[in-house]
């Protein structure tokens, strides 16, 4: 007997809880040569801005123990080129396309959403208020509960589609930001974005990234991400999508048990382009072995005598 892997988020039905994370899956079409994208619960696109962005100077990435730092600088082709060149192919697949949106200014977020509103085949918007790598990457919104709420409210008023707000682990008070954007009308949250980090070349005594600091991702951040997702899921009523170093089906299950309604696979896509499919198959297998009929019964099922502090 097969298990029902479907979940509901923001009124959308996802066939399974495995999505791919923004910035790690290109515009989706790059992976279509290897598997049917329709098998995924959803795809979060590369972050889209109003105009194309060139990104940061190299070196942009560095490998660390169990992870990597990146400072790509939100390089993207711009929202109009995405709609014209990528979306027509992408929307042929039977999966939810979630457009990741960012702006260097408050109004730019709204401009991008206005343009996306007219495009067919997009299920939801994910607001990036948490990129650590560019000054104008939304970090100022992500760190301030009031600013995050103001932005969320304005986007929500304009958007024809549900709004998912992607939270920064670098915010001083993550839970206050989470509650503020929920109150401002966010339909769901996703967490976490990368954690600000540093790597130094001991011979040149310079940072290994051209921009100095970068965002840490990969298996190394999973326990931190899991703790944060647990806390956020307890602090809000809207669904939380868990992100952070998920590489195996066990990782994905931990996030669901800790309270995530779905997960996004990020950095693992780089070293295993088929990882999302392996995790989906692994979920089915786990549920079968454990006699679980619906994956929803796992969500937030963490067993403990009293809530963790």
């Amino acid at each position, binding site marked *: 007997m097969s298990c029902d892997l479907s979940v509901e988020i923001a009124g959308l039905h996802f066939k399974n809880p495995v999505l791919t994370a923004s910035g790690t899956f290109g515009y989706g079409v790059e*992976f279509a040569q290897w598997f049917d994208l329709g098998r995924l619960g959803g795809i979060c696109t590369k972050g889209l801005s109003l105009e194309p962005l060139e990104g940061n100077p*190299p*070196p*942009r990435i560095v490998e660390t123990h169990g992870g*990597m730092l990146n400072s*790509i600088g939100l*390089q993207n082709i711009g929202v109009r080129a995405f709609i014209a060149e990528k979306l027509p192919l992408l929307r042929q697949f039977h999966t939810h396309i979630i457009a990741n949106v960012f702006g260097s200014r408050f109004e730019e977020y709204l401009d991008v959403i206005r343009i996306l509103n007219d495009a067919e085949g997009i299920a939801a918007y994910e607001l990036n208020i948490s990129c650590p790598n560019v000054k104008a990457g939304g970090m100022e919104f992500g760190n301030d509960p009031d600013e995050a709420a103001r932005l969320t409210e304005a986007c929500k008023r304009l958007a024809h589609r549900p709004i998912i707000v992607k939270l920064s682990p670098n915010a001083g008070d993550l839970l206050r930001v989470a509650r503020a954007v929920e109150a401002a009308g966010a339909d769901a949250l996703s967490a976490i974005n990368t954690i600000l980090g540093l790597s130094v070349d001991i011979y040149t005594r310079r940072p290994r990234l051209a921009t100095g600091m970068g965002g840490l991702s*990969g298996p190394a951040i999973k326990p931190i991400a899991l703790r944060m997702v647990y806390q956020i899921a307890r602090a809000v009523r809207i669904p939380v999508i868990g992100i952070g170093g998920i590489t195996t089906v066990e990782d994905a299950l931990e996030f669901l048990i800790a309270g995530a309604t779905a997960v996004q696979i990020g950095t693992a896509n780089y070293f295993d382009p088929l990882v999302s499919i392996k995790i989906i198959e692994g979920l089915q297998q786990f549920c079968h072995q454990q006699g679980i009929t619906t994956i929803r019964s796992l969500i937030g099922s963490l067993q403990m005598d009293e809530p963790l502090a």
Partner: protein
Amino acid sequence: MTTRTVTRDHRVRILSNRRETHTYWRLRVHLADSIAIRPGQFVMVRTRDQWEPLWRRALVIYRAEERADGMELEFLYKVLGRGTALLSRQRPGDELEMLGPLGNGFPTDADSKAEALLISGGIGLPALYLLAEALARNGRTVRLFHGEPTVEPEGSLPALDDFARVLGPEAITLATEDGSKGFHGVVTEAVEVHLERARRAILYACGPTPMLRRVAEIAARRGLPAYVSLEARMACGFGVCLGCAVKTQSASDRTPRYRRVCVEGPVFRAQEVVWDEL
């Protein structure tokens, strides 16, 4: 068997994996498929289900041979860090996950009247073997200039013998910076000496960035076409991490822009690379 051109994550079996000289390892694997490979293309390799270290390692395809039951691929690599150290511990019979072929590769039909000068430094050498083979097969005049800081303790590089079999020993110039063997000096100086008597040449190069930059300068000054294969840190190798960006300006660009070494490269026209920003 049909030849595939699509890139896939192949599971390959190690036939041999041996330290060949002080610094070079030679890896031979069996691939159950037959795939079309262009000279200078690479694969992204990891041991089975490995994610520590996190990234796969990029290895240029050194040699490729058709077999009745698929293909045999050969790689030369240096143990430089955790990834290549792990690779060097894999034994015959072990399996590797090998994503490829990746990248654009060298053009083999450019300026077919010109003498082809292949220029390599250090571990850049493996990127040029399939090119040498393809050009020689097309009846082209091909010369190899290879540079090392010093000669290997065991003598000359066995890989140079592979090139000698294809091009003939007289077509190969070894340059050592300390003069321990062959031409005394950096490899680009040996190329310049040769170019004093050559009329028409096309340059193909792979090696350290200062060497490639010098090749670009030589080509520009003499008005020769030149192709360089670049290296960059890569997390994915197939165009999505955007980590391997290099600044380039092609004829159609109004201003320089970033291109991905893994997809638009690794081979670029030398004059398109913005060397100051590498």
